[in-house]
C-alpha cells in the first residue's frame, strides 16, 4: 500500500476530508461547448468569506486544496487567496485553469507561492479544433504560451482533455504536444450533464464504437488484453467496497458556499455561509446517506459482472435520478472496454418496447383488414 493510500485509509477511518475542490467562481473567459456551468455570478463568496472557509477547511484536516472554476484568474483576489492558502494554512494547492491569463509575471508568482500543480484544459493541438470548442479565437496559443511560462518556472503542468466528437481524432497529436512541452496529459471521455440537469450536452460524447477504439490504444492503456479483459464477478470484498471518495475523504464547495459530495455530484448538503463546514461534513443527513452506501447496496449494479471493476460515478448516477443506481455513461465505458454489456444495459434492452410494432387492426364491418404502426 502506498503512503497516499495509507493516509487515505486513515482519513477514512477518522472521517477527515483529506481533499476539497473549491470553485472560486463560475465566471469564465471561455465558452466551452461541453461546459456544465452557468457562468453568471449569483453572489460569489468574498475574499474574507473564502479566507474564513480556508481556516475551517484547514482545521477540519483538509490537506489537498484544488482551486477551480469557472476561470480562477478572473478573481482579482486570486493571489491573495493563494498566499493565504499556502503561507498561512499550508495547503497542498492544485490549480485548474484555462491559463489564458497566465503570462511570465503570473507564472513567477505561482512559483513563489508554491503550488503543487497547474492543470490546463487543452482539447486539441490544432487551433481550429481547440478554439472551436472554447469559442475563443487564439485560446490555444495563449494556453500553450502559459504552459511554457509555467514550465520555465519549474512548475508541474498537466493538460486535461475531454474527449468529444469534435476532438477525439486529435488526442494522439495532443499527447505529442504535451510530450514536446514536457507536461503531463490526461484524457477523460466523460461529458458531464449541465448543473441544471440538462443532458443534451451528452450528445457530444464519443459513443461506444470510438470509445472501444480508444480503449484499445496501447499507448494509452498499456496492456490492452489486461485492460479490456472480461471482469470476474464481484465477491464479498468488492461488494463491501466504497463507490468512490466523494463524501468519504473528499468533497466540493461551490463559489456560493454550497457543499456537495463532489463537483460531479450536485446533491446539496449544506452551505458554509450558514453553517460551519465541519458540521456539514460530519452531520449533514445527505452527506451521511452518501457515506453509508456500499457497492452491495446498489440497485442493478450488484448483479452486474462489472461491479468489481466498473468506474461507476455515484454523482452521474444521481444525475440520472438515483444515487444507488447505475451510471449509464460508466456502463458504456465498461461495455466499450470489455464487450460485455452491463446489467443495466441488459435490463434497459429487456424493458424497451420495440420502436415499431405491427399488429392487426380489427376488421371493420365496412373495411378490409390492414396493418398499422402503433
Amino acid at each position, binding site marked *: 500500500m502506498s*503512503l497516499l493510500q495509507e*493516509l487515505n485509509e486513515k482519513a477514512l477511518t*477518522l472521517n477527515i476530508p483529506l481533499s476539497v475542490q473549491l470553485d472560486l467562481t463560475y465566471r469564465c473567459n471561455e465558452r466551452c461547448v461541453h461546459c456544465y456551468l452557468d457562468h453568471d455570478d449569483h453572489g460569489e463568496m468574498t475574499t474574507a468569506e473564502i479566507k474564513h472557509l480556508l481556516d475551517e477547511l484547514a482545521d477540519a484536516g483538509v*490537506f489537498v486544496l484544488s482551486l477551480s472554476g469557472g476561470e480562477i484568474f478572473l478573481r482579482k483576489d486570486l493571489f491573495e487567496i493563494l498566499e493565504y492558502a499556502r503561507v498561512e494554512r*499550508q*495547503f497542498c494547492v492544485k490549480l485548474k485553469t484555462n491559463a489564458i491569463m497566465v503570462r511570465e509575471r503570473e507564472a513567477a508568482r505561482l512559483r513563489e507561492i508554491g503550488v*503543487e500543480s497547474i492543470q490546463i484544459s487543452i482539447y486539441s493541438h490544432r487551433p481550429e479544433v481547440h478554439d472551436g470548442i472554447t469559442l475563443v479565437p487564439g485560446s490555444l496559443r495563449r494556453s500553450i504560451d502559459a504552459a511554457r511560462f509555467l514550465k520555465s518556472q519549474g512548475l508541474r503542468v498537466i493538460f486535461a482533455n475531454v474527449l468529444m466528437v469534435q476532438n477525439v481524432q486529435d488526442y494522439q497529436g495532443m499527447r505529442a504536444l504535451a510530450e514536446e512541452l514536457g507536461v503531463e496529459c490526461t484524457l477523460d471521455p466523460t461529458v458531464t450533464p449541465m448543473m441544471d440537469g440538462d443532458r443534451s450536452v451528452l450528445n457530444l460524447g464519443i459513443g461506444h464504437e470510438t470509445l472501444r477504439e480508444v480503449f484499445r490504444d496501447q499507448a494509452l492503456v498499456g496492456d490492452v488484453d489486461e485492460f479490456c479483459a472480461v471482469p470476474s464477478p464481484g465477491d464479498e470484498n468488492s461488494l463491501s467496497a466504497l463507490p468512490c471518495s466523494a463524501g468519504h475523504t473528499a468533497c466540493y464547495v461551490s463559489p456560493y458556499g454550497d457543499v456537495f459530495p463532489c463537483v460531479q455530484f450536485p446533491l446539496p448538503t449544506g452551505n458554509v455561509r450558514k453553517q460551519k463546514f465541519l458540521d456539514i461534513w460530519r452531520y449533514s443527513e445527505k452527506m451521511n446517506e452518501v457515506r453509508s452506501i456500499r457497492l452491495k447496496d446498489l440497485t442493478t449494479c450488484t448483479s452486474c459482472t462489472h461491479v468489481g471493476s466498473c468506474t461507476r460515478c455515484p454523482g452521474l448516477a444521481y444525475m440520472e435520478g438515483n444515487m444507488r443506481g447505475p451510471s449509464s455513461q460508466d456502463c458504456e465505458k465498461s461495455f466499450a472496454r470489455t464487450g460485455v454489456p452491463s446489467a443495466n444495459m441488459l435490463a434497459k434492452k429487456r424493458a424497451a418496447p420495440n420502436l415499431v410494432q405491427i399488429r392487426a387492426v380489427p376488421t371493420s364491418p365496412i373495411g378490409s383488414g390492414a396493418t398499422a404502426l402503433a
Partner: protein
Amino acid sequence: MSKLYMARNPRAAARSLDGEMMIMSGRDSTLFTLNKTATILWQSADGATPLEEIVEKKICAEFEVEPIRALADAEALARELADHEILHISEAPITQQNRTAGEKR
C-alpha cells in the same frame, strides 16, 4: 557541539492527521509522514529556538529517552528533512531574510 536551528520551509505543504504530520515537499511533491516525536520537532522549528532546547523541553520532558541519544536522533532527522528541503537548518538563528536569501541562491 555547535547549536543547530531549524525553520519550516514555507514551500512545503503540511497538515496534522491524528497527531502525525503529512508533509509534501515543495521541490518535487514527495509525500512524507512524521511520527509523533518528529512532528514535535517540525512544529517547534521556528528558526529561533536551538534544537538542543527543543529536545530538552519537548522531547525529553515527554518521552523517556536519554538526552544525548535524543539530540543525536533529532539532529539526524533535521538533516534528513533539510536534504528533502522541507526544513531549513543553520548554525545561526533563521530569520525570514536569511531564509529567503538561502532560497534564492
